[in-house]
């Protein structure tokens, strides 16, 4: 089998693999098969004396880019949403893998196919190259995401690795196995060796789907108090959206943001135990003892599940005034302070974003500044809900 036929097969695998896309964390996705095929493509470029390695790598990356574009077009035409950041990541992956493979060739390591088993050194070198390329990919993708979403770089890298690290690892290893299988099984290799990856992709898709229904269930829980007439319509959703926005500004990780969101969505759940609703569902107007009881009932319900524990733990502190932290040195988690503030804001405005209502609400919050609420968070809140008011009172 010629090198050309081999490269064409890998090119086609990139095109087809694009459609096996896994969307995680709601926003971005990855096409592990296309990545594996792209890296295998770059690792298979023939090293010839006289042809500059850099030129070869550039040509290879161009081919990977074309294959990715064609694959994306086909996937989108078939109604499969893909992600452009993933293609950027794949190209990074291809560049680094290609350069390192040329470096391996320059050192004189090559496939001997001798039965002495020494080829493992060559295999190991290829594997290291693929892993390095995967790491470079994560670094570049995180850089892009942190720039476009205005988030801290380090937390974005952490999130990228936590979300896509394992799939990238499988992808890189699969690429190496495909390349190594070439002499033994030829064109069967790219098909056979992607099968374990297909398994992971299927499981990851299931995971994403389950995560979606999990979020729906939490959203439904958060609406229970609305529908039972305890709270105003969509109060919990608004509090959660505002809380997530403040959390993002403070650089919380995805996991912390999830917990914050779930806690904010469920912060009024305890009201279902009340026999008579609080007027307007506004806990901020309820007596402190009632507030505590609502919190305790809500937390009690959440703890039955055994899995909402982190959110429940936050909620136990949601009614705590900021002064405890200042005067008595108690630790109140940032997330709990955020929920206290955003809940109060929404209770005061009744959900309205009308400038009059917002400024009345902010005034009432200012009254509790430093005593009830964290002043720095209040600044952030003003930035979010009334940026112009902030410009007037710097």
């Amino acid at each position: 089998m010629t090198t050309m036929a081999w490269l064409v097969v890998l090119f086609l695998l990139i095109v087809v693999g694009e459609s096996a896309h896994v969307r995680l964390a709601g926003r971005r996705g990855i096409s592990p098969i296309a990545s594996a095929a792209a890296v295998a493509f770059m690792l298979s470029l023939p090293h010839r004396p006289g042809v500059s390695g850099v030129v070869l790598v550039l040509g290879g990356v161009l081919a990977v880019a074309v294959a990715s574009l064609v694959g994306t077009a086909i996937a989108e035409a078939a109604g499969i949403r893909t992600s452009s950041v993933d293609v950027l990541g794949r190209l990074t992956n291809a560049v680094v893998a290609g350069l390192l493979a040329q470096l391996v060739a320059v050192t004189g390591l090559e496939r001997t196919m001798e039965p002495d088993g020494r080829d493992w050194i060559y295999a190991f070198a290829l594997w290291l190259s693929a892993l390095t390329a995967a790491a470079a990919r994560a670094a570049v993708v995180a850089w892009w995401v942190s720039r476009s979403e205005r988030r801290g770089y380090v937390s974005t890298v952490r999130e990228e690795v936590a979300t896509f690290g394992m799939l990238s690892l499988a992808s890189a290893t699969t690429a190496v196995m495909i390349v190594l299988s070439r002499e033994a099984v030829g064109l069967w290799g790219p098909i056979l060796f992607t099968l374990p990856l297909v398994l992971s992709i299927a499981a990851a898709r299931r995971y994403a789907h389950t995560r979606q229904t999990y979020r729906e269930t939490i959203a439904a829980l958060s609406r229970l108090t609305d529908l039972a007439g305890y709270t105003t319509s969509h109060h919990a959703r608004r509090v959660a959206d505002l809380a997530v926005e403040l959390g993002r500004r403070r650089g919380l990780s995805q996991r912390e943001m999830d917990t914050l969101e779930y806690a904010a969505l469920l912060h009024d759940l305890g009201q279902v135990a009340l026999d008579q609703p609080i007027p307007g569902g506004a806990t901020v107007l309820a007596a402190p003892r009632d507030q505590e009881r609502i919190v305790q009932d809500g937390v009690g319900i959440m703890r039955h599940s055994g899995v909402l524990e982190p959110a429940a733990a936050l909620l136990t502190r949601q009614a705590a005034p900021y002064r405890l932290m200042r005067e008595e040195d108690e630790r109140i988690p940032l997330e709990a302070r955020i929920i206290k503030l955003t809940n109060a804001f929404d209770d005061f405005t009744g959900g309205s974003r009308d400038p009059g209502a917002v400024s009345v609400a902010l005034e009432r919050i200012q009254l509790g500044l430093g005593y009830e609420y964290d002043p720095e968070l209040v600044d952030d809140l003003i930035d979010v809900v009334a940026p112009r008011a902030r410009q007037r009172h710097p």
Partner: protein
Amino acid sequence: MSRESSATAWTYVIGVWAVVIVLGALAVVYEPPSRADLLPLAALLLLGVLARTLPDSVVSMSGDGVRFSFFGIVTLSAAVMVGPFGGAVVGVLPTLLQPVRMRAVRRVFNAGMFGVVGLVGGFAYLLAGGVDPLTVSGTGSVLLDIGLPLIVADLAQAATNALVLSGIMTVTARVPFWVHVRGLIASTGAAYIGYGVIAFLLVVLWGPGQIHWFSAALTTVPLLVAWWVFGQFGAELEAHERTTDTLVAALDVRHPGTAGHSQRIAILCDWIGESLRLSPRALTELHTAGLLHDMGLLAARRGTDDEILRHPETGVRMLAGISFAAPALPAIGAHHERVDGSGYPRGLMGPDIPLGARIVAVADAFDALTSGTPDVAALDPRDALSQLAADRGLDSNVVDALARAVDRHGVLEVSSTEWLSRARVGERARAEGESARSSMATIAAVLAAGRSTKSWIIRHDHPLDRLAP
């Protein structure tokens, strides 16, 4: 269970080990292990210990689970790379050493079973014309001299696994042998296809690919990743299922006692659905409908009769937007309708009422009669059933199905407090369980099932769990 059945189990286990010893002796005589086999044996033993040490990723719904383990791949690879004797060693040792607390009879049985599986795989490979993978080269030869015999070995191992396991189920649980064999082959067949493919990859890179032991290392990586992803999936599923319980817990805070009622209705719905031979998907929907049928009562306060009359519809609104609950909504909205048109809120009649709603109505009425109220004493199930049979608002076919189910299952007792404390206990029980059929891909069955997260319930309990310690 009794001492007697424990003794039967031991007798069977000893029988299995007798087979191991006889086949092992044959292996040593006809295919003696050589020094060249030491490296593959060591590498695969290591991999076997790893596969046995990692807790299986469990994807489970309502206590029934699908497990992900790659031990089957290791025994198959060993049978091919090192021969029957090597297959047995790799099957037995990691299983005996498995760092999980389990009863001796079970550990010894599992080890013996994997010993037989390894031996049979090794012999099948040789008999089908398989050759030492290190001596093969060329694509055609790889596929014919390794690939085909490997498939034969794989099938032989799947069959052996099913037969030996069915044997222990027959002697300990007295269930017909062939029923078990068929069930096992149906549930693990797909897994063995996966084992075959991946073992083939490992062997191909090791021998014809000439990277030797490094092949085991490389092949493990995608497997570990798959194992990890499945673990994540299982954890998320668990979280989701538990959160569904939270809905019931919220209702119980509002109206104490309803959690036990909801759980009993869900179980009664399962029983009736099984009697009516509903499809697995319909059973799942029915279970959800039973569990969440009274959610609308959350809006009902003391002295508000109209809220109580509206609760089926309120429940539907509360659960709208949860995709797994969507198919159950018609049943929830109509569970107070009566076939004679006397129900509420819409006064539907006969077949206009969804079957699910008619079933929930019967279960609800049965539970009300057998649980009693402060004013009315609880009825005996027999009396309750005859009262239901006389009720013209209930579907008589469903009442008959319930009668058959009660005959079969006996009395159901679940109280609210019991149910609410169930969560953690269930979790522990599941974490401790271990299936000899730990299958990398009953998974294939999971993935093949539709999008409904609840529709793939596959029973995977181990027969020896039913014996007393």
